[in-house]
């Protein structure tokens, strides 16, 4: 299911514009994931020093996915992009054990942001195609994800390179974006 298909499924949702925010440390695979979501060639990706926005529209419904660069110098700017977010997707490089602490700190900073309160969180444990990848259970434990309260969340192993696990992510997004809207 690509972004257009997701949008078609979301038609029952009452709001006409959706905003997905895609964050994670640099090199986590956000841009590759964004391309995968749109079934594009993922062999060539340049690092993002800024944002990549993808807008998809179908029959009056619009979906905007915001991929914001994750380099340390630009993380302070993330907060400029929180407003009106419907779903937060957080991407982790499962092979980058050295930075599990750093990525969990960044994630918890995000979860404390007022503007992201109650926003459903979907975590992609990316690069599972590599042997060096830590499995998703261990990542959940290392990042103490069980401490997350007051929001829908889910962690999903995936490979943005091969596309494995992405479909499951899209299905979750589909369900949870709609649920959040109903509550409003």
């Amino acid at each position: 299911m690509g972004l257009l298909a997701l949008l078609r499924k979301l038609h029952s949702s009452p709001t006409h514009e959706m905003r997905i925010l895609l964050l994670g440390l640099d090199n986590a695979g956000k841009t590759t994931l964004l391309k995968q979501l749109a079934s594009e060639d993922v062999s060539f990706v340049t690092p993002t020093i800024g944002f990549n926005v993808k807008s998809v529209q179908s029959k009056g419904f619009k979906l905007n996915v915001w991929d914001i660069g994750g380099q340390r110098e630009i993380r302070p700017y993330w907060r400029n992009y929180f407003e009106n977010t419907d779903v937060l997707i957080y991407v982790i490089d499962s092979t980058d054990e050295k930075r599990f602490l750093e990525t969990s700190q960044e994630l918890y900073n995000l979860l404390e942001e007022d503007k992201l309160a109650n926003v459903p969180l979907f975590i992609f444990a990316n690069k599972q195609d590599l042997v060096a990848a830590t499995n998703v259970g261990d990542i959940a434990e290392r990042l103490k994800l069980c401490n997350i309260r007051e929001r829908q969340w889910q962690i999903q192993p995936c490979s943005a390179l091969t596309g494995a696990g992405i479909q499951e992510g899209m299905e979750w997004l589909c369900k949870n974006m709609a649920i959040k809207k109903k509550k409003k």
Partner: protein
Amino acid sequence: MEPIEQPIINKVTNTEDPIEIATHDFSLNWMLLKDSETGKVLWEGKEDMSIPGQVHIAEVPKSILECKSVSRTLNFSSKRALTNFRIVQRVMFQDQLLEGWSFKFGFVIPNSTNSWEQVIEAAGEGHMLPAEMLSGNVLIQTDFYDENTIISASRVRIFYV
């Protein structure tokens, strides 16, 4: 992304007027048109398409008119931080507006390079004019604003070949 309201469009009297650019800190790096179903690149503009007063030419394969959905990407850089960046895009057929959008990005990080890709579903059969009629008569106008100040603009005339 919102449809542009009519009054804004009416303000555009001469679509090819050179536009005074408020800053040189902004550049449009490239533009890309793709068939979004197959990912096939239909047209790529590598030069700076925002040279003031210049109408750039894009030769696009006719087959684009049969694509179920088309993706358009703009890549741009800004040296300065922008607080309320937005893009207004219009597709004109002669003097008539075929499609128009405005998209509000808000903040732009200083010294950043950013991209915006739009995937647009085709209007469907029967809504498309033939390539021969469209060719050379379609102008894509893109205006870049920070708040209400225009910071750059691009005019690209499309030929279907």
